[in-house]
């Protein structure tokens, strides 16, 4: 039996985490994500989980990395300034293949910017913010329902691919309230089991993912952010080893791009095609509803990283892609890399959603 609720997006995120079996939350209050922490503070201890308010966001993400190695599903939630503080530890989680979920309810930046206003300005930071060559997974919810569902999905992807997974929400979706259908149970994908007696980071499968040797399962596992061999021991001066390790960490995500792509295609034969993720999806939906024009297509993306490039190819007659984003055009650059037709960015800063009229005006532009 499902049940119907009327929830705030941030509450739906916290409930999604609880449904997914998250047993550890470590974080630090920051607008507009604080309700996630507050809800976990109230609910997690009752379910035998641990909620810790850490002293800052560096400590917040570090604590979930620690918890993850005990085998727990662990999460933190933050916004721009806190996300910036997390960058070093994000790289550490990638290098050590630590499954964890980081929620970023985006607000206006740079710096403290607009704490209570909506934005999508961290979409390139999440992909490229930590130093070195990296690959991560980032999901963008456009409804309160998706705040719940994509949080569940984030845990499953994190455990499957052994990588930090980011729920890149925005203040609009985080703070809005709407109807949500809450399922009784959710799908759970476990971490790949570790084969006892083998090296801790040995990879035998073509998916490039090693089994997870949690602390306390009989392994003397050695976890380090230094370049390490398959036993986990530092070996930071061997060029071939470093190349192989970093390539594998990137490949295990990039090669699964199609497999994890999550998107909707509407009117694939259209000439003009909107592409949106997060809050702008809602404005595009309004335009689609008002216009009822099969020559207007819409690609609605939920997995923004790795970018689902195959989705663009489904619009075979596309003459132009139109990308409304609450930033100065971050994902539109990614789309430009993949298509041969013009890409029209509709950037918007300041915290307010695009209006349907703003999108219609672009549709009616002369090519």
């Amino acid at each position, binding site marked *: 039996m499902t049940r119907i609720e009327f929830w705030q997006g941030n509450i739906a995120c916290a409930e999604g985490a609880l449904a997914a079996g998250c047993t550890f939350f470590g974080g*630090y*209050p*920051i*607008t507009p994500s*604080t309700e996630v*922490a*507050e809800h976990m*503070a*109230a609910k997690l*201890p*009752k379910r035998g989980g641990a*909620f810790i*308010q850490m*002293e*800052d966001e560096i400590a917040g993400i570090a604590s979930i990395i620690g918890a993850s190695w005990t085998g727990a599903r662990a999460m933190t939630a933050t916004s721009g*300034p806190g996300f910036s*503080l997390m960058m070093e530890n994000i790289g550490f989680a990638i290098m050590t293949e630590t499954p964890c979920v980081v929620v970023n309810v985006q607000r206006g930046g740079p*710096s*403290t910017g607009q704490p209570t206003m909506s934005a999508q300005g961290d979409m390139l930071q999440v992909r490229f913010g930590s130093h070195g060559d990296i690959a991560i997974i980032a999901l963008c919810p456009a409804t309160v329902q998706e705040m719940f569902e994509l949080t569940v999905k984030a845990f499953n992807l994190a455990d499957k691919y052994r990588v930090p997974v980011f729920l890149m929400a925005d203040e609009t979706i985080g703070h809005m309230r709407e109807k949500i259908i809450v399922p009784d149970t959710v799908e759970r994908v476990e971490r790949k089991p570790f084969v006892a007696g083998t090296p801790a980071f040995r990879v035998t499968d073509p998916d490039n993912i090693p089994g997870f040797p949690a602390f306390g399962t009989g392994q003397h596992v050695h976890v380090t952010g230094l370049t390490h061999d398959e036993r986990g021991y530092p070996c930071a001066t061997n060029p071939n080893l470093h190349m192989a390790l970093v390539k594998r960490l990137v490949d295990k995500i990039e090669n699964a791009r199609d497999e994890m792509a999550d998107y909707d295609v509407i009117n694939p034969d259209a000439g003009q095609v909107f592409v949106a993720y997060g809050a702008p999806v809602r404005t595009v939906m309004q335009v689609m509803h008002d216009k009822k024009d099969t020559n207007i297509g819409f690609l609605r993306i939920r997995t923004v990283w790795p970018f689902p490039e195959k989705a663009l190819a489904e619009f075979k007659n596309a003459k132009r892609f139109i990308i409304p984003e609450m930033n100065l055009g971050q994902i539109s650059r990614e789309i430009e890399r993949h298509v041969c037709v013009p890409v029209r960015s509709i950037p918007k800063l300041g915290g307010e959603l695009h209006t349907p009229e703003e999108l219609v005006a672009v549709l009616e532009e002369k090519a």
Partner: protein
Amino acid sequence: MAEKKNTCDLFDCGHRACGGCGEALAARLVMQAAGTETIVVNATGCMEVFSTPYPETAWKVPWIHSLFENAAAVASGIEASLKKQGRKEKVVIMAGDGATFDIGMICISGAFERGHDFAYICYDNEAYMNTGIQRSGATPYDASTTTSPAGKCSFGNKLPKKDMPAILAAHGAPYVATASVAYPADLMQKIERAINTPGPCYVQVHVPCCTGWGFEGDQTVAIAKLAIETGLWVNFEMVDGKVTKVKKVVRKPVTEYLKTQKRFRHLFKPKLQETEIAAIQAIADRNAEKYGLDIKLPPKKE
């Protein structure tokens, strides 16, 4: 116009603080004591938010808000550069308890170790009020906040208040003091001393928050006073690591303080939590013993 040295409007009226805000009162007194030749470094928090948007901007001195964690480091740069230029302005850091006890610790430790000449004023309202009342390292035992909610499983915050003055005294700070908005003359005297003592000095000011603690805005000073009279807040001075002055009191039971605030309401309703209240009384008793708080009254004549 002649320069007004001690003018009370360096932190001006018309800002956006709640009626009865303890930290707005503290800021006004701090600036009155600091004077015009002051540069203020403000960490993220309520004060930064309510005192800055135009046209309600309250600050009439040079002022910089940096980030949440780095006020002490930004102040270090200002102070070291002023010194190289032979300038005499005073550097005052204004930071809340979250910015001081939690996220700012690394930068504070570094700045106090290097020995910059500034006054670090922590206005302590015992939780993150700007983001909606989350616990901090300064939140007292059993206070209910949104991240330490009292309920069936909990009496609120289970951790003791961090002893920040002792931590900074251990860094070798020449002057460390605690103060309260209930005693404005004492507060201003301590601010002046912190500013005029060479080296990194620290003053922690108790500033009740009507919104976060749950009381009417006309009770701010009365509640601040009760904190001292019950021994749950101690006003003292430390010079070179040694306690040199303590505000002594004829102590009242801690319930006199606790029952005035909604953050402790769960200790009284639906039933009196005697064990928890005894634990809080024990904190006051330990303070009394450590600082010699109790005034010994002469025995009553028969």
